[in-house]
């Protein structure tokens, strides 16, 4: 952005800005470089360099102390390992919780948007779990999903005794328990974003639809949902990224990845490989795989967002 010569300037002791342009430009670019330097240095040294190291070490048999070069064949070996696909399958199942979270979020937002009596209190209640750490959710989750826990007693009081069992005892139900906790934690953020999105819609649009005889459901599906397309893309992406990279603490405290790898997702697998078995090279490799997956999700967001302009 160059200096605008046409700007009306008040009388000052200075010469006109246009006249001082060269020195101001120099001052601008020097100040800019000085100001950006600390952040650029920190990001380079502690974020980009470790990524480079991780790429290098992913092709070695690194144990944290010494590393022998093995080449890209380490990736081939990993992609042939059934356990790797078992772990990715767990991630895929967890991804199914993402649309559920979005649906709950948009529904709750639509209900809050009706501004019924006490809606601010309800909004606060729905958003509170967002502030709670995954460690706490894991600790409470164990109590919720145990044989004599909250979920079973809730099912029992609904007469659904046949559904009662030790949820954390078998792989698929433990993964379901992780997914339920995930939805519980992220529904608030989703709701909050959709509430904000709905506030941007002009109320007269709804008024017109109502005069045309549209039902609440029709105006929801034909107006609200299409108008919030960008918000859907955005919440989908942040929720999917959370499903891949934010659940370590939950899995660590609630299931430790078990039973029998049933709740081991790729991010927990990284930790297990490196700090559980000492296979630092394998951990680094999995970290790169995770990075590739998440970058693809982010790039998909950019494409979808630019298309919905």
């Amino acid at each position, binding site marked *: *952005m160059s200096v605008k010569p046409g700007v009306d300037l008040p009388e000052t002791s200075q010469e006109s800005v246009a006249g001082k342009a060269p020195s101001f430009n120099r001052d601008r670019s020097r100040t800019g470089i000085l100001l950006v330097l600390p952040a650029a240095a920190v*990001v380079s040294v*502690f974020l980009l360099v470790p990524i480079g190291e991780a790429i290098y070490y992913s092709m070695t048999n690194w144990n944290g102390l010494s590393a022998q070069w093995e080449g890209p064949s380490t990736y081939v070996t990993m992609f042939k390992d059934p356990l790797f696909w078992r772990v990715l399958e767990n991630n895929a199942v967890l991804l199914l919780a993402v649309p559920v979270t979005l649906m709950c979020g948009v529904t709750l937002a639509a209900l809050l948007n009706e501004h019924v009596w006490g809606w601010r209190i309800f909004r606060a209640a729905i958003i509170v779990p967002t502030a709670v750490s995954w460690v706490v959710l894991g600790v409470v989750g164990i109590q919720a999903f145990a044989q004599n826990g909250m979920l079973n007693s809730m099912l029992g009081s609904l007469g659904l005794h046949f559904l009662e069992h030790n949820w954390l005892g078998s792989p698929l139900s433990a993964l379901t328990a992780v997914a339920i906790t995930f939805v519980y934690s992220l529904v608030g953020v989703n709701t909050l974003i959709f509430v904000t999105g709905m506030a941007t819609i002009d109320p007269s649009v709804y008024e017109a639809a109502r005069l045309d005889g549209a039902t609440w459901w029709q105006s929801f599906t034909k107006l609200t949902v299409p108008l919030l397309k960008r918000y859907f893309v955005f919440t989908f992406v942040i929720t999917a990224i959370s499903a891949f990279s934010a659940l370590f603490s939950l899995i*660590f405290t609630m299931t430790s990845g078990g039973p029998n790898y049933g709740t081991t997702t790729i991010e927990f697998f*990284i930790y297990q490989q490196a700090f559980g078995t000492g296979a630092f090279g394998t951990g680094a490799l999995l970290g790169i795989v995770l990075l590739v997956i998440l970058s693809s999700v982010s790039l998909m967001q950019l494409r979808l967002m630019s298309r919905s302009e």
Partner: protein
Amino acid sequence: MPPGRVFIFLILFVVSVVIMYPFYFMAVTSMRSQSQYELGKGFSFASWIQLFQSVPVAKEMLNSLIVCACAIVIILVLATSAGFALAKAHFRGHGFVLLGIVGGMMIPVQSIIIPEYVNFVGLHLINNYFGAILVYVAVGTPFATFLMTTYFRGVPEELIDAGRCDGLGYGGVFTRIALPIAKPALATVVVLQFIPIWNDLLVGLLFLQEPNVRTFTVGLGVLASSRVVSIPGLMAGSLLSTIPAAVIYIIFQRYLVSGLTLGASK
């Protein structure tokens, strides 16, 4: 109220009760001793006393506070200055730097944590506040910088021209004009960084292993996996760890929304 609205009220009421139930469970359970918990009735402070006896609560809270405060202050300094430079004080190659920093937003902590850990072992930064703080800063700075860049882009160019007419250099424009009007964006950065750092387990578990530097969340995670404390004691700890994040959250709720929706609206 018309019946439709009563129905909506009832749905929201039931959902809120279900969502708040775990907090009720934590509060009630923490107010019982182990035997009262098994019985399902009674009231005592025994579990809170047990928690404070078996865990250095004050020390761990102080550790959490030090780590969070330092990391957030450093992130704020780095992100505001870089954000201003990338939005207003253009230099040759600023687009490239912006791309690099935005690219950093895509990097999950799990992808860098192994090399970082080994590097920091060599630098003696394990079991040292500064090591964990550096990791939080590295992971938090890209998004904070992106947020500040977007914010400063919204500052009218006329305001900066006016500052220059008053004889300020770009450094002066930054500290005297841009910084004071950036307070809402700074609040957004604070709330968006505080919650994940306060609640973090992974970085703390690896970089702050020793009890004397451990944060409260890490302490709670270790406590949960070691099973030395009763369930009511664990619930007391859980409740305690939730309070600071919830307070920050309620105070800064407005800024949380603006930060979260930035990605959707821009």
